[in-house]
């Protein structure tokens, strides 16, 4: 089903037309629904409002306003000092660009690697492919913290592109270990399995090989799965914190999340933390708002929740 068709169906499902003689929903029910929605908006929106409003306030005022509604309102002394402080303390543009670079590269590489792996598991029958799928799925239960040290050993031991030993202190070490992802493989596998195999057979009759089928038949039909995997790969890559701390020493290679530690000195600069957090949240927020319909459709179509 195309994305457009999905969108139309969703719209119809959200607003069912009343049949003749069917009663309007009761006013109390409508009001209750509205109240619930507003409450949910507040629960998810107020922390963001607090972050943005506090980013314009001096530290003392942030804490003086806590416990009252003033904490969420642009009242009192408002200025750009915290933002100026951020630029004075942190190479913000470098960190932001690094995060964009690392996240987008991880997504791009991940889409290719994981979709190919899933295609092989879904379409090519070979001895033990169920076992391979089982082993891949089993890795889902291993938390990253458990693998961090062995992974560090690996990336410090294997030779780099230039022939030197180890991958530490590079962009590549922040990207390549996270390209292959068991959950993404499983998502693609599930989606590819739902695409009729007759399409492959027709292509084979026309002389297409496995790669041509993957590139020209399967991937163009896998839009929702691609979008879902992109989101689910992008967010952890953008929020990456522990791994860069372990493998990157040069400041110019650090991603944005590590930058937040720059403000936690003996005296914590809360206003600057809020300003920095606002600035690194903004690109993700803008991206989500711009593509929210595509995201929601893709998640709905691929059956992933949360």
């Amino acid at each position, binding site marked *: 089903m195309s994305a*457009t068709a999905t969108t139309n169906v969703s719209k119809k499902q959200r607003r069912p037309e009343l049949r003749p003689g069917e009663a309007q929903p009761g006013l109390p029910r409508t009001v209750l629904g509205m109240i619930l929605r507003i409450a949910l908006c507040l629960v998810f929106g107020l922390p963001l409002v607090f972050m943005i409003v506090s980013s314009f306030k001096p530290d003392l005022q942030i804490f003086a306003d806590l416990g009252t509604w003033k904490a969420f309102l642009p009242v009192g002394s408002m200025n750009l000092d915290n933002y100026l402080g951020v630029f004075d303390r942190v190479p913000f543009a470098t960190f932001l660009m690094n995060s964009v670079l690392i996240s987008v590269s991880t997504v791009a590489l991940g889409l290719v690697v994981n979709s190919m792996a899933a295609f092989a598991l879904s379409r090519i029958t070979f001895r033990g492919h169920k076992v391979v799928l089982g082993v891949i799925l089993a890795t889902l239960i291993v938390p990253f913290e458990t693998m961090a040290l062995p992974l560090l050993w690996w990336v410090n031991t294997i030779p780099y592109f230039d022939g030197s030993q180890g991958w530490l202190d590079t962009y590549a070490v922040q990207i390549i270990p996270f390209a292959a992802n068991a959950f993404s493989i499983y998502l693609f596998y599930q989606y590819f399995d739902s695409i009729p195999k007759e399409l492959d057979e027709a292509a084979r009759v026309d002389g297409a090989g496995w790669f041509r089928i993957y590139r020209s038949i399967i991937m163009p039909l896998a839009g929702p799965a691609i979008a879902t995997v992109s989101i689910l790969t992008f967010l952890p890559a953008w929020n990456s914190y522990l791994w860069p701390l372990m493998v990157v020493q040069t400041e110019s290679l650090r991603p944005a999340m590590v*930058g937040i530690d720059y403000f936690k000195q003996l*005296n914590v600069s809360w206003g600057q933390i809020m300003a920095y957090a606002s600035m690194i949240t903004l690109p993700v927020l803008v991206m989500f708002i711009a593509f929210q319909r595509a995201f929601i459709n893709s998640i709905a179509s691929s059956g992933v929740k949360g």
Partner: protein
Amino acid sequence: MPKRTAKLVLATLVAATLPFTLAACSKGGTSSSSATSGGTQTLTMWTHNAGNKAELAAIQQIVTDYNASQTSYKVDVQAFPQDSYNQSVVAAAAAKKLPCILDTDGPNVSNWAWAGYLAPLDGMDDILSKFMPSVLGKWNGKTYSYGYYDVALNMMTRKSTLQKYGIRIPTIDSPWTSDEFTAALTKIRDSGAYQNPFDLQTSSTGEWWPYAYSPLLQSFGGDLINRTDYKSAQGTLNGPEALAWAKWFRGLVTNKLIPLKSSAAPDKDFLNGNTAIIYNGSWGAADATKQFGDDMLFLPPVDFGKGPKIGGGSWQWGVSAGCSNKQGALDYMKFAAADKYVAAVAVATNLIPATDAAAAMVPGFEAGGANDIFRQYAKKYAVLRPPTPGYTFIATEFTKTAQDILNGADPQQALDTAVKNIDANQASNNYFQ
């Protein structure tokens, strides 16, 4: 996904990955601890103060001076943010990629020395004799690090507050006694004028708990471990003195003298007038003085029987054991120990200069200066956290125990459990021999 959106996403991906193809294959700065180029050996140095521009600039100036003073070595600084610095160091140690010169928080020195991260500062005894004992990192009779500054815990309050409630202003020679302090807090609490009569900053995490609260335990007569041989905490952490500390500690909550959990920024609560007395480090003095001027008081900690105590030891510099050019690293360490550099870092941080000569050069820390009181506290009251490699475990165990006690656990039982765990850890590591 609509076609236009897909194209936009694709274009973004291509645009963002293009630079990657160029940059991905190059490595960052000096990744090894020491490298040679044109006869000059480069020594990598790591520091925790990436987020502290003034301190980093002072360190950078020392390095610039050193690099200009000779041609054999060139020191290259890599700065890390303080909050995650230890994680970076431990990961680098696991990968055998420690730099030649690095700084470390004082209480970690013995553990890092035992673990083979740090090498002793051989041949520096004469130079280091001028430093305050609390800024030297020692283990097994050897010195592994020295620091440019120390910090001092104190009771911050306002003269007007004490005068309003008729509370005596204590001095370094006549600090508050336990009874006097309790009476003072009770008066403030009963007035209802403050949200928190006293704030121990219990919302702080990490090293704050052992750094700030173990001196209170020591003032009662207890300690984290028996310091004669560092083998057991039996009797020191669960004896009658420690029990008295635990009961007093919990009593602060039950008597509503402190909040069970402080706010996210207790220092701001004090500056906003919500807290009457706050237990804080000297790093908070500048902001407090700016807010309250001459009304500010930085009082000695309470004497609970064995005299007032405060924690000693802050960030210190050392040489890594794996450095392939220890001679060069030690050469830098000797150069950087000059009083003028101690003074320069103290000026940048507004913390206590580690040598007398440096203190005389730093405005405010000279004898009789506004900040001299902190130096006196550090000299008179400072107790180092136990210099045993097991300290990192002890610190975690003490933090957990103190939190349990504060939350209402049976004090004796909590202390006994801590002792059992600490003793087991020391024994399982063969007492770090």
